[in-house]
């Protein structure tokens, strides 16, 4: 009898435990206020790539605005893994910002938010390319996502190096050719005391692909000369070759972890950014606030302590002399998930966390208060702070004030910020099929290495690479937006992409 009782107890416990694993779903009662926002108590989940402390504080600000909405945030460590696991487990976030659009589109993670976007007047006052190029629409008429985080590329010039070498600072609206000349002029000396014209994190060919031509000639809205329908890698090839030639001619500082770096500075792990011996840096925008603008524990500014550098920002130049031109940028796109039960509220959350003026106002409060630090003890403006996507003047005035304000530096920063209003995201962040092209063709043949070491000319690859890129794009467009995907393409569009695929396979 005792054993039977024990067995029954065990069974009951198992049943209750299993029941606890179930999805605690909720359903909308349909009550909304005058703005169309639900009055029910709901919970929205927001997954992101930003600093978690910043996002939590922003979520709190959102919850103050909408007290009946609870927001739970989570930092994504790997988009594919985290979201696939969440989709399998039925715990998919309501809103998420991602880095890889192919993953999001292939699995229909994002829902159509066109109506919300188009009916929101605030969205007209954003950085121009967002609406002009339909960033987040992926060359369809439907908006699935919107940029929520942006850091444009930047070229930094070390003012101390310029003064040491008795050169003059270049104009802030320099052209591509002027930049290359400056790099060559600033390369001086030899051995351990050598000054390099350029140190890089971002390869110049990535930047050149966007800066290569005036919009009047080709409306480049993505890497590799992508104009929304097809690629033209001949632009990329010029930049690739030019960069490789600079490297082989000794104008470019060695990378970390190489024998060349060891030969230069005696330490293979040294970084050109704190040597005081590199004139121009093709760096991520975040490098300034995250590294160069920090202060060490003993109160000495980083730049003073390491290398005595004085980095000034310059916009990535254009080939033609246009003040307003496109700049490549790292942009995270965010969207409302297809499984979300409160899409409008989720859209409001996405906007608040990404590009909305209210959200950015809350962000500025957070960034301006340097006593607020993240889990690593770093003030939040030094934790991958993005640039505002809104063009709201108040926000921009507050934002600019976070950067050096002295007379020597402020004009440069102001010029830089004025010239980055046309960001174009990297390919994997905005173009369908881009990742497949890189994975299956571009990276596989190792073009960068071949051209860098002089065993091949970039131009020789341009035609075939263009053909391959167009094929992968067409294939992805049909797969993502055709009948087996979102099913929004017209018959003509499908026929057009199919013809391209057919011509490739012949």
């Amino acid at each position: 009898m005792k054993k039977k009782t024990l067995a029954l107890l065990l069974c009951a416990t198992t049943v209750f435990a299993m029941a606890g694993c179930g999805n605690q779903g909720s359903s909308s009662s349909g009550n909304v206020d005058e703005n169309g926002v639900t009055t029910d108590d709901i919970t929205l989940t927001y997954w992101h790539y930003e600093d978690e402390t910043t996002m939590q504080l922003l979520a709190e600000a959102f919850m103050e605005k909408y007290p009946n909405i609870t927001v739970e945030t989570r930092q994504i460590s790997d988009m594919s893994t985290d979201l696939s696991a969440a989709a399998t487990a039925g715990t998919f976030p309501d809103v998420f910002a991602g880095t890889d659009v192919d993953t999001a589109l292939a699995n229909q993670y994002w829902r159509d938010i066109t109506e919300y976007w188009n009916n929101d007047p605030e969205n007209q006052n954003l950085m121009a390319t967002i609406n002009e190029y339909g960033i987040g629409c992926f060359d369809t008429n439907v908006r699935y996502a919107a940029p929520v985080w942006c850091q444009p590329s930047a070229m930094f010039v070390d003012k101390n190096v310029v003064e040491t070498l008795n050169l003059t600072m270049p104009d802030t609206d320099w052209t591509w050719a002027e930049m290359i000349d400056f790099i060559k002029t600033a390369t001086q000396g030899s051995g351990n005391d050598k000054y390099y014209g350029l140190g890089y994190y971002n390869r110049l060919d990535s930047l050149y692909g966007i800066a290569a031509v005036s919009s009047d000639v080709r409306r480049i809205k993505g890497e590799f000369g992508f104009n929304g329908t097809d690629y033209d890698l001949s632009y990329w090839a010029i930049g690739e070759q030019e960069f490789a030639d600079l490297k082989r001619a000794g104008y470019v500082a060695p990378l970390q972890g190489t024998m060349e770096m060891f030969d230069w500075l005696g330490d293979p792990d040294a970084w050109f950014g704190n040597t005081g011996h590199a004139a121009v840096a093709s760096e991520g925008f975040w490098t300034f606030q995250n590294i160069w603008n920090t202060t060490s524990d003993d109160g000495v500014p980083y730049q003073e302590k390491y290398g005595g550098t004085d980095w000034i920002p310059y916009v990535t130049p254009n080939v033609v002399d246009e003040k307003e031109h496109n700049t490549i940028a790292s942009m995270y796109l965010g969207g409302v998930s297809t499984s979300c039960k409160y899409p409008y509220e989720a859209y409001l959350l996405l906007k608040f966390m990404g590009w909305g003026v209210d959200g950015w106002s809350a962000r500025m409060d957070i960034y301006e208060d340097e006593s607020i630090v993240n889990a690593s003890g770093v003030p939040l403006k030094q934790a991958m702070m993005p640039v505002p996507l809104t063009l709201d003047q108040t926000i921009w005035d507050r934002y600019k004030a976070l950067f050096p304000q002295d007379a020597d530096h402020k004009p440069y920063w102001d010029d830089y910020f004025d010239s980055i209003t046309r960001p174009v995201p990297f390919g994997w962040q905005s173009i369908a099929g881009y990742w497949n092209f890189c994975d299956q063709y571009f990276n596989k043949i190792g073009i960068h290495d071949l051209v860098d070491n002089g065993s091949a000319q970039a131009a020789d690859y341009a035609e075939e690479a263009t053909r391959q890129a167009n094929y992968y794009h067409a294939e992805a467009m049909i797969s993502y937006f055709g009948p087996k995907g979102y099913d929004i393409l017209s018959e003509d569009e499908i026929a057009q992409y199919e013809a391209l695929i057919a011509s490739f396979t012949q």
Partner: protein
Amino acid sequence: MSKEKKVKDPRGKLGKLEKREARVGYFFVAPWLIGVALFLLYPLCQSFYYMWFNIRITPLQTVYTYVGTGNFTQIWLENPEFPQQIVTYLWQTIVEVPIIVVFALMIAIMLNGKIKCRGLFRLIFFLPVIIVSGPVMNMLVTEGAASIPALNTESIMTAFDAFLPTSLAESITEIFADMIMILWYSGVQILIFLSALQKIDSAMYEAASMDGASGWESFWKITLPTIKPYILLNAVYSVIFLSSNEQNELITMIQSAMFSGTKEKGYGYAAAMAWMYAVIVTLIVLLFFLLLGSKKDMYDRQVKRRQRAVKKEARLVKKIERRGKRNAKKIERARQKRKYKTYSGESDY
């Protein structure tokens, strides 16, 4: 006619007490059975089913598209990394397993001897198994703690590269680069060998010693033959461990393919990879089984032959008994029908 008491067949119907005991037995093994069904058989069948499909998991539904052998052709034709990793894995496993087993045996023999602080040394050699697992191992490898700093692996690579294909030379060099880690993998094997060594009857060593056998001879004639089954066990354990631990690039690759969001990869693609990998691991285990599996000696063969003869004899006896019973029944039936006349003794026969 005396009625023979019917002897209960032990394999027949169970009694009440036996039934109850059986129920309790099943109850106690139930967690294991449920675990095997849920976490082994079900995923096994599921992954076998998955490998024929392209699977997309959207937030709303799971979309299965039948691709037949499409996943396999894609893996072999469009993913050059997989075949490369398989070759590397094969070489590394075939070379690393003997190193681990021999090292474990040497340490086990030493730890089985009469030495001071024996318990402490046993603890030290088993400690990596407890602490160096998962993230700790990854961190140590990243920090370079798994390699011997004084070992110039580049020279080794150059030496092997001169007469071996580069991929093979790289595989062998990696073994030298990760030598400490390989030795760390020996903890469980040392424990298994220790228990095997302790089971050997010390009288055998005494007898051998009295017959003039040296320690070296005793090792080859007594120790090694006795623990031979454990060598196979440890080899199989090492193969399984090397094939499934987090340092294995193939495991990382399968995991990455499983969670990949690209339209070609996903669960189906990863399942196809995993099954092909499982077949390769099984072949390696089979290889070690063929190499180390015990071949029966003369005495074993004689015993087996004798056992077979006894069984055959028993079967013959049973056959004769059954035939005798059948004949007896036939005679009885005929007698009852009075077909047979039995001699009463009254007249001439």
